[in-house]
């Protein structure tokens, strides 16, 4: 999934691979946005990305810790409101809790919304009594005047209940101890659904107990059969290896139970079950929770300000422009400094190679090929990323992104898409591959496909620096604060181009090949949380910046070598690169680009970060370019090769709208399981970019 240390960290392993033998296996369940990932980190000491929006955990991650000499394996499963699965994520959560075979399940709850959280906890208790309740966010709830009597709750439920404030590391040791000392409880709370349902379920339960032989909770299975939840029944069949309803004694017991229900006048069993669980949750909360509405006046004022007609959209655009302003302004000096540093080290390396008697070709390939591309990628990529990521993560931690999705929902609704697509789009700013995986939070299959196909229409962080470079070189040439403001606005305009294209193409898709009615998204708006600034900076630097940079550098170094070879080895009076760029030239010109730029985008397929260095190298190889001493001198090289602001504009548009990188395409293939959709994911943005570039170049060119 790309971006996080969780997928690369040494203690982490995605389920399915690299399992470490453990003495105890724990499943970590909970509603979305209750700090489940924070508890996971606190338990396993493993850093992974945690964000303040619903449905962030899109893969099942596993971590380990040792406690008193025993190894405990913790699996962080996707957030779910219920075991009645809706989205693909919730289905994964249900399957893991129900059939994953963990020794015990820790249900993380939000102390501020315990009633809703107990809905899930009580459903899980129906499945297994081996449960520990971790009531998290106690501190936040307390601030809002809510107190939870965890001891009383524990007595009522019959299972351990641990109060926690995982962000402050409170309750973590207690949870570890509770996991270590856990023994199956002699009594665990059971929701009673009323005499009519209990009588019908009772007989079925007895029959099932004999058939299931402890492989699955009989009461859980009986209730699912009675409510006729087909999706869960199919999952049960897969797990058991047979269809329960095909067992004669179960079938006849089910018939009897249904007849009994009919006689008692029970019409909708599913409704009765949900209502029953909620009335149980309500009465448990009445006993154990006191005070507070969970949502204060301050929150309400802030929410109204951020979503009101007059201020909602302007504030959003201003915030975006502000982030870009800080990024552009702040990245300038460190970029120049890094570039100069790399040049100086390059000079030393060059002298060292010469002193060692390396042949000229080897020297040039290493210094002019590998080192130059590497130094460009690092000096141009690192500063904007190191500034942009922490700021973006702060907004994420604060809980602002769901408000953006809320504000933009009507746009997505008119496009026949899901408002949550806004969240996956935001993930795309970080990395389109991560955004594509994130689309799992969208319930409707049709809308999920729309979100997958359009994700790469917003520029990922590999493409931001290209845009920044183009803007500062050609589109906004004035310097100083005014220049930075204009540059930030220009960057915002490019982003809006991406967002606009996302809406337009989503709309076209939902009127053509993905026709259908907009589904009904339900989006939770979590309370605002004060971000822990230090942690955010460290986490986004470590988890995202360095990882993304490492990936870019790993691609850039060999790419630099290859391109240098292609640009310098002459066959029949011309170089391979010149031959290719020459062939591409007519198409490139038509799009307001040229052969070199188009070739660079094609060669940039593994990582867009290499596009600009490839352009530079291709031009430099064909001319006599010496001015490498600073970034601004690159402008001279581009101008020499016929660049105007129109070229820069078209290149910028094409940067936003062209085929996604290979990682993203592979992810699309994996997520959709279809070559056709993968091809479309490449074709759609390319077509959009080509059309727009051609139009621009014919108007201004």
């Amino acid at each position, binding site marked *: 999934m790309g971006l996080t240390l969780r997928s690369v960290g040494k203690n982490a392993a995605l389920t399915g691979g690299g399992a470490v033998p453990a003495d105890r296996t724990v499943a970590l369940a909970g509603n979305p946005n209750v700090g489940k990932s924070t508890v996971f980190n606190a338990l396993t000491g493993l850093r992974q990305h945690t964000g303040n929006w619903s449905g962030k955990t899109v893969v099942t991650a596993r971590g380990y810790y040792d406690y008193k000499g025993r190894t405990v394996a913790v699996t962080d499963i996707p957030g779910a*409101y*219920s075991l*009645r699965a*809706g989205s693909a994520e919730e289905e994964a959560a249900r399957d893991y809790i129900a059939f994953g075979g963990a020794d015990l399940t820790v249900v993380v709850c*939000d102390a*501020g*919304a*315990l*009633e*809703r959280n107990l*809905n899930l906890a009580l459903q899980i208790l129906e499945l297994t009594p081996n449960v520990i309740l971790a009531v998290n966010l106690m501190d936040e709830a307390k601030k809002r005047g809510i107190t939870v009597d965890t001891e009383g709750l524990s007595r009522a439920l019959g299972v351990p209940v641990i109060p926690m404030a995982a962000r402050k590391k409170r309750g973590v040791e207690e949870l570890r101890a509770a996991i270590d000392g856990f023994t199956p409880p002699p009594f665990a709370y059971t929701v009673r659904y009323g005499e009519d349902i209990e009588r019908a379920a009772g007989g079925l339960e007895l029959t099932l107990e004999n058939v299931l032989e402890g492989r699955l909770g009989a009461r859980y299975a009986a209730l699912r059969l009675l409510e006729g939840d087909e999706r869960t029944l199919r999952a049960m069949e897969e797990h058991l290896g047979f269809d329960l309803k095909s067992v004669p004694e179960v079938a006849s017991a089910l018939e009897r139970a249904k007849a009994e229900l009919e006689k008692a006048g029970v019409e909708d069993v*599913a*409704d009765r079950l*949900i*209502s029953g669980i*909620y009335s149980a949750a309500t009465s448990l909360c009445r006993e154990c929770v006191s005070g507070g*509405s*969970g*949502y204060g006046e301050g929150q*309400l004022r802030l*929410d*109204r300000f951020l*979503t*009101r*007609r007059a201020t*909602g*959209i302007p504030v959003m655009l201003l915030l975006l422009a502000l982030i870009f302003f800080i990024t552009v302004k702040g990245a300038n000096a460190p970029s120049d400094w890094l570039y100069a540093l790399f040049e100086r080290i390059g000079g030393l390396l060059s002298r060292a190679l010469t002193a060692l008697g390396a042949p000229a070709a080897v020297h040039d390939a290493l210094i002019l090929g590998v080192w130059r591309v590497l130094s460009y990628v690092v000096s141009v990529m690192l500063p904007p990323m190191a500034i942009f990521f922490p700021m973006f993560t702060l907004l994420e931690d604060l809980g602002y992104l769901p408000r953006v999705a*809320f*504000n933009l*929902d*009507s746009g997505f*609704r008119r496009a026949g898409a899901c*408002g949550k697509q806004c969240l996956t789009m935001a993930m795309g700013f970080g990395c389109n591959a991560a955004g594509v995986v994130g689309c799992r939070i969208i*319930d409707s299959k049709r809308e999920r496909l729309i979100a997958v196909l359009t994700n790469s229409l917003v520029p990922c962080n590999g493409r931001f620096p290209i845009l920044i470079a183009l803007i500062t070189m050609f589109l906004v040439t004035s310097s100083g604060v005014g220049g930075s403001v204009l540059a930030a606005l220009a960057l915002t305009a490019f982003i809006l181009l991406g967002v606009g294209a996302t809406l337009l193409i989503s709309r076209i898709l939902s009127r053509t090949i993905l026709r259908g009615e*907009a589904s*009904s*998204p*339900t*989006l*939770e*708006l*979590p*309370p605002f949380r004060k971000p822990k600034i230090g942690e955010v900076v460290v986490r986004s630097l470590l988890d995202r910046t360095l990882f993304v940079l490492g990936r870019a550098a790993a691609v850039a170094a060999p790419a630099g070598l290859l391109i240098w070879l292609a640009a310098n080895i002459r066959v029949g009076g011309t170089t391979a690169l010149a031959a290719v760029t020459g062939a591409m030239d007519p198409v490139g010109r038509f799009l307001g680009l040229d052969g070199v730029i188009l070739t660079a985008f094609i060669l940039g397929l593994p990582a867009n970060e290499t596009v600009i260095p490839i352009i530079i190298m291709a031009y430099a190889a064909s001319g006599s370019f010496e001015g490498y001493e600073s970034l601004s001198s690159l402008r001279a090289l581009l101008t020499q090769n016929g660049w105007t602001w129109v070229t820069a504009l078209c290149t910028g548009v094409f940067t936003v709208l062209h085929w996604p990188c290979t990682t993203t395409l592979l992810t699309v293939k994996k997520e959709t399981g279809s070559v056709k959709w993968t091809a479309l994911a490449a074709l759609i943005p390319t077509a959009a970019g080509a059309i727009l570039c051609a139009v621009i170049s014919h108007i201004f060119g």
Partner: protein
Amino acid sequence: MKSNLACLGEGSGAVVGDIRALGELRGRLMDLGFTPGAGVRCLFAAPSGDPRAYMVRGSVIALRRADAALVGLGARGA
């Protein structure tokens, strides 16, 4: 036509009555806490007026107007 959640003005509260949604949405709404008898309050609306955010059982849930119209309102204290 009985009153429904979509008619609830910003800032006013009510009690959930019958759920008229069918299929998956019905289960999802109920799982989020929109069950008969639950207290609900309309907090704020998006710039276009749709969706709106509702407080139900301690959390804030955004619903599109067409979906909110499928949540009936009951008499207070029902």
